């Protein structure tokens, strides 16, 4: 492990707590602003869509509160390790590529986007044998497409160009 810590284990713990608190806040906000005004947050089990989620959220809130106490009390016992910038660059790049891929999959279709995604991820991983990478990307993406489209009759996204191969 080289380089300075970017995210320590303690920070990661607080991020998870924050995520849960966002979830709790979202549920309460939706109950107040959406279910409440449409009359779905009152009455018995037949009419009240909010009672159960509200109950579960309160339990979650209680557990998170306990976790916060644990984190504060035990903060010295948590090992001071974590993730360095060097470790985070590649996952972040790949997640960004994957997100971009999902975004383009709808408009451009499976066949235009999959091989470039594979190629780009390989490049991020550090591969530099371009020809091999191109061949591999095309083989993997069309191989999987063949299996799903011709063997399982799944219709993969065709995008605005309607690119679907009639295998």
């Amino acid at each position, binding site marked *: 492990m080289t380089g300075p810590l970017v995210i320590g284990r303690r920070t990661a713990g607080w991020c998870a707590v924050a995520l849960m608190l966002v979830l709790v806040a979202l549920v309460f906000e939706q109950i107040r602003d959406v279910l409440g005004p449409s009359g779905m947050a009152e*009455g*018995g089990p*037949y*009419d009240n869509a909010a009672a159960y989620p509200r109950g579960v959220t309160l339990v979650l809130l209680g557990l998170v509160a306990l976790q916060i106490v644990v984190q504060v009390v035990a903060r010295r016992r948590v090992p001071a390790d974590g993730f360095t910038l060097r470790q985070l660059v590649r996952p972040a790049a790949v997640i960004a590529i994957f997100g971009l891929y999902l975004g383009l999959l709808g408009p451009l279709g499976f*066949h*235009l986007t999959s*091989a*470039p995604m594979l190629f780009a991820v390989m490049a991020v991983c550090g591969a530099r044998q*371009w020809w091999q990478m*191109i061949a591999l990307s*095309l083989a993997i993406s069309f191989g999987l497409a063949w299996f799903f*489209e011709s063997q399982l*009759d*799944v*219709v993969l996204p065709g995008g605005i*160009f*309607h*690119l*679907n*191969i*009639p295998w």
Partner: protein
Amino acid sequence: MNFKTIVTGAVLALAAISGPALAEYPERTIESILPAGAGPAMSVSQIIADAMGKTLGVSLTVLATPGAGGIKAFQTGLNKSADGYTIIDGYVAPLVLQPILGKADWKYDDFIPLHAAASNAFAIGWRTDETRWSDFEGMMAWGKDNPGKLRYSSGQRNNLPHLVIAKMLQSYQVVAQNVPYDSPPTANNDVKSGILDFSFVNVGSYKQDPEALKIGLVLSDRPAAKAEFGGAPSITDINADLGLSGLAPMGWDWWLVKKNTPSERVEKLRAAMGTAMADPDVRTRIERLGFEPLDWDHTHYDEIVSGVRDQLSTMADAIKWEEDALKALK
């Protein structure tokens, strides 16, 4: 040659082999979007899809898309291109009932009909060793004497059986509690074990185990429906007039495509579905499931569907009546 040329070349090659305008329609799998999960309805659609696929020369797959009373399936279909590769399996609930209840904003004539598919009747059943009543009128009398005590299930809330049962209860001024179940067989089982008082029974469940429940009332005036339920009493045999006739109280579907689908593709699909629905083998297999294959082609769509819509519109207040009556009891 660099990377860019290769990709461009590959794209052009792909476009050449799969350009939609170049080849004869249909050249790939067609999807039919079913607004339900696995069950008898899916089996019926699968039978029709297989027969059509054989005529068309491509696979026709049934995509089970349950959710939000069928609305999710319709929305999914409407979001696909109008290229004849997506068929919407237009069941009555999302096609007619949901717009009446204000949950969907389409009208039945926003779609192009291919052909009518099949209809299936509902009945209500109670346990075989029931002692509190022996026939339908008896149950209504018991329900009237014990307001709010009857527990029944129509499957999902606000679905077609719910509307019909609520209308029936309203006619007899009986207040009962609907208990939603996601799986009709489970609801029937809970009637059998005595937790529920009665429930809707679809013809598929009845066929699987005719002895499980006593069929008290078939919710249809069609003789064929009565026969499917072993000749049990139907709404023509009771004192009240529910104002329901024909397809109105039943489940049924027309296969539809989106507006703007090229007309030559629509005609191909219509011809294939017409052939499938006329095929005696297809008809027997559908009938074996307790469904009735329908003969109407696209020219009858407006007349039939608008008739059902008009009948269902007049009874939309029955569910509201039930809700208010239940609240008043508490």
